[in-house]
């Protein structure tokens, strides 16, 4: 999905004229033109496009002002009329026409291929499916268009860490509008999502751990086709990363012939933008349980949640005991490396239980917990065996030292007996 942003970065440089022909692809940096010569001597808004030209990915690819805006770049620097000759295609896009303006190149597969054989050319089509695009098509000039995310001039490639659409900046870029309550009010949007996302486990992974695999806005909502995922899609959206949980969830639906989407979705337990790291307390009937949000003590699932939580807790407690026993035995010098490796399987089984909670299948869950417990008991037995051996070693040492001391005493007696008392000097 992030590649969409990359393609869109190339999309919005400036200007209008959707009907104009795409410019020719060029390999070297753009040559000087009268546009640059003239605009670089101007002040204010008229000078802005030239200021950022050097950083612009289009300029770096050899494109220049007239490739998007038309006009005559060969005119005399002070001939404003000739430079902005509409007969030569000069144009300036409005917010409503910007998507078409950018798409004249970015929807042209043959043209884009010259710069990047892998370039996507469906950004406009996707945009039209987004809430932004749909409203833009109806004449709403306030909704986001290409330049709101990518910038106007000085557009950077999506892989450039300083680009506003780089993975690490997407949340701020979206937040520029979606955190603005005034701007969101007419659309009935709460403007709290960016702040909620910043508090999530996903944002912490991205910003604190620097994990670029952690999702940001566009990973769930799409880039150019940005829209809230429908209820039927939530499992698929979350499942694009949390695959096993989503598979288990869908299995329940298939097995029971249910459509759970309207009543239970990932976000019912995990929230959506403010997703937090799940805890084991979420399973069960305790104060932090998410099961009890919907199920009361009279519901059969309530009892299931209680049993599942108890089995997970027992497994964790015994696992901790086994780990501690083996660690202490290891510190005491007993070789328990192989037993510790075997116990790692139980750690995997605990993780598996946490995932299996998404199956809502009590029997399956308890069977897995039983298998984990069996592994853990082997570890406990190994730890106890190690401590028995430690005691035997200490006992063996004591006996050995007594024997050695007796031999030393015997030797000293023998020496004394042989040599007698040392004569006085």
């Amino acid at each position, binding site marked *: 999905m992030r590649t969409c942003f990359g393609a869109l970065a190339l999309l919005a440089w400036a200007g209008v004229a959707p009907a104009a022909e795409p410019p020719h692809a060029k390999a070297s940096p753009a040559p000087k033109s009268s546009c640059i010569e003239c605009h670089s001597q101007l002040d204010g808004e008229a000078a802005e496009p030239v200021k950022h030209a050097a950083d612009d990915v289009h300029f770096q690819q050899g494109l220049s002002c007239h490739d998007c805006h038309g006009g005559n770049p060969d005119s005399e620097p002070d001939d404003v009329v000739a430079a902005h000759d509409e007969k030569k295609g000069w144009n300036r896009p409005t917010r409503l026409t910007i998507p078409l303006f950018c798409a004249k190149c970015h929807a042209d597969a043959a043209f884009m291929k010259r710069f990047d054989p892998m370039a996507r050319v469906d950004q406009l089509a996707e945009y039209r499916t987004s809430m932004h695009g749909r409203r833009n098509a109806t004449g709403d000039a306030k909704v986001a268009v290409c330049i709101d995310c990518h910038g106007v001039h000085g557009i950077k490639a999506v892989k450039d860490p300083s680009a506003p659409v780089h993975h690490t900046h997407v949340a701020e870029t979206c937040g520029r509008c979606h955190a603005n309550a005034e701007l969101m009010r007419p659309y009935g949007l709460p403007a709290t999502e960016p702040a909620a996302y910043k508090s999530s486990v996903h944002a912490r992974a991205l910003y604190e751990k620097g994990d670029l695999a952690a999702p940001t806005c566009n990973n769930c909502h799409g880039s150019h086709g940005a829209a809230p995922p429908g209820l039927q899609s939530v499992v698929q959206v979350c499942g694009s990363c949390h695959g096993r949980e989503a598979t288990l969830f869908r299995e329940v639906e298939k097995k029971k012939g249910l459509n759970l989407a309207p009543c239970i979705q990932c976000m019912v337990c995990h929230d959506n933008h403010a997703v937090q790291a799940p805890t084991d307390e979420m399973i069960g009937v305790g104060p932090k349980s998410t099961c009890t949000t919907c199920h009361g003590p009279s519901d059969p699932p309530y009892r299931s949640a209680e049993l599942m939580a108890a089995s997970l807790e027992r497994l964790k407690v015994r696992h901790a005991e086994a780990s501690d026993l083996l660690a202490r035995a290891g510190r005491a*010098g*007993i*070789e*328990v*490396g*192989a*037993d510790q490796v075997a116990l790692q399987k139980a750690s995997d089984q605990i993780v598996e239980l946490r995932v299996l909670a998404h199956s809502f299948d009590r029997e399956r869950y308890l069977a897995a917990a039983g298998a984990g417990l069996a592994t853990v008991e082997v570890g406990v037995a190994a730890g106890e065996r190690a401590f028995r051996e430690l005691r035997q*070693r*200490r006992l*063996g*040492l004591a006996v*050995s*030292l007594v024997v*050695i*001391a007796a*031999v*030393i005493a015997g*030797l*000293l007696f*023998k*020496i004394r007996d*042989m*040599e007698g008392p040392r004569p006085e000097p």
Partner: protein
Amino acid sequence: MSALGKARSWLEERIGLSALVALAREKRVPVHRHSLWYYLGGMTLFLFGIQVVTGILLLLYYRPSSGEAFESVQFVMARVPFGWLIRSIHSWSANLLVFVVFVHMFSVFFLRAYRKPRELTWLSGMLLLFLMLAFGFSGYLLPWNTLAFFATQVGTEVAGRVPVVGGFALRLLRGGDQVTGGTLTRFYGFHVAVLPAMTTLLLGAHLLLVQRHGMSVPPSVEAEAQRTGKPPRDLPFLPGFLLRDAVGWCVALGTLAALAAFLPWELGIKADPFAPAPAGIRPEWYFCWMFETLKLLPGRVLGVDGELIGILAFGLGALVWTLIPFLDGEKGGERLRRALVLAGLLALAYMAAMTVVAYLPGRH
């Protein structure tokens, strides 16, 4: 005649045991205020014997390949009855052996026991010391754990820096350009075949020379005897000295048993040649003083590689030290002797200090 008497008579006819016993009974050990140092040779021999016995027992289970070495030692430690004891004693005894060898060497040096006609005894002793270090270096890698793997990489790199023969030495030790399973197999070969064979020959020569020349009496004791006209008291080697030796051996055995029971030798984590080198890599303690010195040397000294200067200095130092009996000959004056004693004290202090530095917290 009893059965024992018959057996003795049978052996006497074939081997001439009584002549050997008579020879041993002739051997006498001087008794004076420095006699304690005489026990170090016997202690070294005893610990070497322990190494041979425990080493043979470990051989029954050890598998010298990168895929199985670690697991086989783990199996010895965890599953073989008393395997933990044998392996721990082998490791502790190896370290104790190196320590005792060094003390033995320094005691001989400071008591000037290398004087004529014992030059070859010193020479064979020094070669045995180098062999013990080689045993330690080769044995360190055999469990194939992370620390040993990277320490061997560093150690063999040092060998590779030696001018002219360095490249050859590096490939000879590693069996290639990198430390691999091939290096392990090679070190195993050195450890259980090449080095024992060389040690057996040199040890035989060393013991023969000790037997031939008897124990050296320190010059100070000799001078005192000359002054007083009373030669130092002596003790028959059999059984008096040997029984005292045995007391020391029993103490060593008890110490090894206690160390093995309370501080079993760690196995560590299996070596992963593709993993980055972990923090805290260092060689066995008896190489640490050299390791630390090489680390302290600047990259370049007067345009020459600093590490190379260090390696050459160690090589030259070892050579001079080995040839000490020929430098400190009869013609050498008192000033030379004092200079040698001072050099020995400085060397000892430097080695001890740098070893301590290597083990300071946060050093690695």
